[in-house]
């Protein structure tokens, strides 16, 4: 394997967060590689792992590239770790959905949509770094505005916010006969 490609792979492996192509361009600038070249290397690697169908794959998420395990092997890893998947409650998911679609959004606006007080849920989402404080709304009382984080994109496997289906699409889906609670499997 040529060295550039090996360096890119090593960085992808070692990084704790998705690696943006720009950071690699910066890292490898003395090697005279441009953004296009880096993206080609990244896509090549991604293709290689996809073809190989081994334990890992490279995914595009949160504006970068990241190694992760193959989704269909999840049960084995959970069993190895003997851990349960971290559950996001239905309340947390609903609140997250409102923040994701309506951001920047105030607590009062979230409460109004859901019909319940979201205080505790918001705090949990802040602690888990799925949402963050993005400013204040310039209305009387200047309430805090919330938005989603990069971590949100990473956890939900989104390249960016535009990858979220639109609310219109959601409305078109008739949840016929589906039970109410969004409980994790």
């Amino acid at each position: 394997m040529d060295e550039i490609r090996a360096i890119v792979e090593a960085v992808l492996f070692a990084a704790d967060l998705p690696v943006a192509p720009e950071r690699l361009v910066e890292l490898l600038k003395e090697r005279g590689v441009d953004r296009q070249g880096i993206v080609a290397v990244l896509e090549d690697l991604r293709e290689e792992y996809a073809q190989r169908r081994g334990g890992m794959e490279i995914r595009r998420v949160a504006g970068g590239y990241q190694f992760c395990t193959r989704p269909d092997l999840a049960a084995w890893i959970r069993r190895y770790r003997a851990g349960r998947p971290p559950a996001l409650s239905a309340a947390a998911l609903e609140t997250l959905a409102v923040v994701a679609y309506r951001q920047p959004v105030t607590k009062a606006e979230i409460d109004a949509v859901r019909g319940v007080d979201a205080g505790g849920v918001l705090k949990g989402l802040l602690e888990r770094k799925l949402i963050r404080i993005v400013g204040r709304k310039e209305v009387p009382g200047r309430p805090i505005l919330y938005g989603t984080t990069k971590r949100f994109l990473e956890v939900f496997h989104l390249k960016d916010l535009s990858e979220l289906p639109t609310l219109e699409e959601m409305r078109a889906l008739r949840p016929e006969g589906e039970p109410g609670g969004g409980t994790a499997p």
Partner: protein
Amino acid sequence: MDYEVKLEVFQGPLDLLLYLIRKNEIDIADIPIALITRQYLEHLEMMKSLNLDLAGEYLVLAATLIHIKSRMLLPEENEGEAVEGEGEDPRQELVAQLREYQAFKEAALALERRPLLERDVFKRGARIEDAVAAGGAVEEEEMEMDLFDLVAAFQRLLARLGPSGPMTVNRELLSLKRCMETIMDNLRQRGGMAFDDLFPDGRDRRKVIYTFLALLELVKMGAVKAFQTTPFGPIRVVLSGGADHG
């Protein structure tokens, strides 16, 4: 119908209402308000009898439903014309709210169906030093701080001080010094420790405070390192320079 069995935990009054609408296979745009109000109130009774915590919002919606019902019964709104007539349908606002909530509920389910990190896919598990060969000099990844961390840090500080305000420095220094020695002794014996293990007497507030302050001081002095690889993950404490791997 499986009435009792279906009593699930609802996310709020709107969720309960949506559930009733779905259960009765009703068009959301044309809710038979009398039926739904009755079933809604029955559910509240049931939840009360089960000692489920009934948030005030449930009662607010109950009042709204009853109000709409009474307006629907007013003589000028004959059945059939109610929707198209120039008089506003009293259900209109509620329907709009329900529709919106339903869309977000769908969006939440769609989020939940995505491949979730730590449930469906996993990142590299090894800590950075272990993952990077010959990388002893690679520094431990610290959490990226955001505004919430800043405020939370201040809140914790104030909570630690309690209502009595700052403690006197003399007593503190004494205890601090002793706590620092205890931590160092423990670390020398064991190499590294989980943060929580530093606080065996979790109930002794004073002791906890001093131990924590001692730890901060030791970190500041560079005698020990405390790190955390994930937000709210376990904090590990090690002696500086004493941690060699491989």
